[in-house]
């Protein structure tokens, strides 16, 4: 059994290793402004630290209806290598114990990016929980911001 942190992102459940979790941040709109630097967005943390904002939900934007980010967004702040990531989530999430040995891989149809991003699926009754690979989350978010920046520069 392993302790996982369960986060809801766009009506779906995602899990990361609880040991990576630094904390949960809330943003109630108003004065909060993420720091933008080189096409990346950062969430300011206490003591002058900051976390890269990673919107996993944006990677699912092509699928179905996706509610736009509204006030009251929560961030799951996790440590990965020497960096902090802030995963955008709905609600505050919770800690659960799970038998990770029962994790299943995605069907072979899912290749490359989706397969590395989601190395396994936990099945709990009728619920399915996607495990997230933090390195791929970070890389994917970086690529997306990089592409957006390129597009802006081309327009100019």
């Amino acid at each position: 059994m392993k302790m996982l942190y369960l986060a809801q992102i766009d009506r779906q459940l995602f899990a990361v290793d609880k040991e990576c979790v630094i904390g949960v941040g809330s943003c109630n709109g108003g004065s909060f402004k993420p720091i933008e630097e080189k096409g990346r967005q950062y969430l300011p943390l206490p003591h002058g630290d900051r976390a890269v904002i990673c919107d996993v939900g944006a990677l699912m934007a092509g699928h179905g209806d996706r509610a736009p980010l509204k006030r009251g967004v929560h961030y799951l702040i996790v440590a990965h290598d020497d960096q902090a990531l802030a995963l955008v989530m709905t609600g505050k999430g919770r800690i659960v114990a799970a038998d990770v040995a029962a994790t299943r891989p995605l069907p072979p149809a899912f290749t490359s990016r989706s397969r590395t991003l989601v190395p396994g699926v936990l099945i709990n009754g009728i619920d399915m929980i996607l495990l997230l690979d933090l390195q791929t989350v970070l890389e994917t978010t970086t690529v997306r911001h990089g592409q957006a920046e390129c597009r802006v520069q081309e327009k100019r």
Partner: protein
Amino acid sequence: MESERQQLGLRSFLLPLAVNDSPGNFVCLFTQNQVVEILEPRFVLHVPGSPGYLAGVLLYHDSLLPVIDLDELCNRHQAEPRKRYRQLVVVRTGAADPETGVPLKAVVAVKAQVRIAKISGKELAETFERQEAPPSLNASGLVRGCFRRQDDAIALLDLGPVVRGAYATI
């Protein structure tokens, strides 16, 4: 016996297909042997970072099956307005898992009601005219055959490369 069955015509499942560069009604045909079950719409788990033609995964009898959006698959380079899925069709693809050798099933998500008809191989050959698939459909590289009778067109697709994970390289 086999020819007798062909004469009578096996039940075929016709899944409406939106092919942008083809006029008239377009359907994708799956045989009775291919279709396992037709499910009512239910929650499909989206997988971040997956291509648009993979709508997600579905838990079906303790197996995780990929959910394929046929319209996205056949119009990959054209923006397709998204609609809610009306039915989910569980199909045998005839392909096997490259690692385990287990036969692979898939779920095909359709946005309009599936029609059931009895079309024999003979009828398909005699009353339908074999034709070149429309460019958008042909570009998918999955077409095994395309037949037309007046305004109705039928496509036979091979979903094997998609479920094996070999489609991205086509």
